[in-house]
């Protein structure tokens, strides 16, 4: 038979037990949270990698990336050669008041110009301040954490294989070629 009031007593016991335990609250402003390396805090930009291809701006579901660029003409180096053109980035801005942190711009960038940083303390008193221009986005780059280490038995990254092959080839060539001072 169930004794009436057992549930009530159990409720009291539970809350009392919780009172004697240490609370598990994260003391946020005093102690920063330990965020996983791929947390989506703020988007950082390596301006040098950007070719103003506009892929990120076009794929952005919230239309929060603004890009202005112009073409620079590089005159031909040889006589009668063709002039080259190059994209120069004038403005790159992300409006974080619109951004929904979907990460599509970062996935879509072919030149790895955009990265996630786990910094998240960039609240502003004025909503217009939340539009980060390219110099501010560049500054965030310093806070981007290193990529997560691979699993112990994982295949090495493709880039490493390519770089290794190139290095080996260069070494071979150097061995074949005689040293510069021996040349007549």
């Amino acid at each position, binding site marked *: 038979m169930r004794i009436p009031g057992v549930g*009530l007593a159990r*409720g*009291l016991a*539970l*809350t*009392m037990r*919780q*009172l004697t*335990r240490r*609370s*598990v*609250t994260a*003391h946020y402003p005093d102690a920063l949270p330990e965020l996983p390396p791929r947390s989506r805090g703020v988007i950082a930009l390596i301006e040098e990698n950007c070719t103003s291809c506009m892929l990120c701006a076009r794929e952005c579901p919230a239309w929060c990336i603004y890009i202005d660029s112009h073409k620079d003409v590089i005159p031909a180096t040889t006589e009668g050669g063709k002039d080259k053109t190059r994209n120069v980035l004038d403005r790159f801005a992300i409006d974080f008041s619109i951004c929904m942190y979907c990460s599509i711009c970062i996935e879509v960038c072919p030149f790895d110009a955009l990265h996630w940083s786990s910094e998240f303390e960039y609240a502003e008193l004025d909503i217009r301040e939340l539009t980060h221009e390219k110099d501010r986005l560049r500054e965030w780059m310093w806070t981007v954490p290193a990529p997560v280490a691979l699993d112990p038995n994982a295949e090495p990254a493709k880039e490493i294989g390519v770089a290794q092959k190139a290095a080996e080839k260069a070494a071979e060539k150097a061995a074949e070629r005689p040293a510069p001072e021996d040349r007549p």
Partner: protein
Amino acid sequence: MSEALELALRLAGVLAAFLVVPLLVGQVEHKAMAHMQGRVGPMYAGAFHGWAQLIADGVKFVQKEDVVPAAADRMVFKIAPAVALVPYLVAMLVIPLGPGLVGQDLDIGLFFVIAVMGAGVIGSLMGGWSSANKFSLLGGIRVAAQLMAYELPFVLAAASVAMAAGTLSLTGIVLEWSPWWLLWQGIAMFVFFVSGLAEVQRPPFDMPIADAEIVFGPYTEYGGLRFALFILAEYAGIVVLSALTAVLFLGGWRGPFDDQLGWLWTLLKTMAVAFVVIWVRVAYPRLREDQLQRFAWQVLVPLALLQLAITAAGVVMTA
């Protein structure tokens, strides 16, 4: 002259207790409730574990705008918080802290306190009725219904103690008290405490406020200082209820070294009961309005009547 001075001192003491102890209970509630829920509660105000949080809250409330709804009954709306608060101040006047340590020792202290506590509820009712808001009105009606239902077991339980002690004076009851009353008057203590909780509208009996159902009941339209007064009334109510429970059922200042430390015993017992009030709030969800009524009439009133019979038998046997 010295008599006037003594009276002034007593009144000042009661006023100080009235201003300090409810804040103390409020702070204990902040911290104890937080830790019972695995949180830490206020940590910043006053630099050490948020001890000044309620003072900061008070300053905030004072700064706020005093709004009276256009359709409200202005006069009633404005005096309602005072009507809710003052009775508890008056009640504190007659609750003894130690032998002779009382604002005013009345021969009918128990009767007086219970009458005055009933009046405190009128403030909520006035607030609910005058706000011209349907949620306030619902809350006000719930207050009235709750008062009707719980005043009866409250008074019956108190009457049981008065019968056992043979006096209505609170000081006299403490002097008559002896430890085995804990057993003899146990049911009365339970009934008194529970119906007292309902009377000061504390969870799990806070249906008049029930923020998930009717916004904030009678206090919906209140803001700023008037709202703060209502909240202060709630905590003063806890203090009065706890002190009454301590004095009537737990022997007031009786305890080891009670000739010197009597007042400390009363305060300790009061704070212990206040802690239970907070504890119960954390542990239990709010009852439904019909459950509240059924609990009062089908459980508490019969229990109180049973206790009266037990007390009567005890009094006759020991007489």
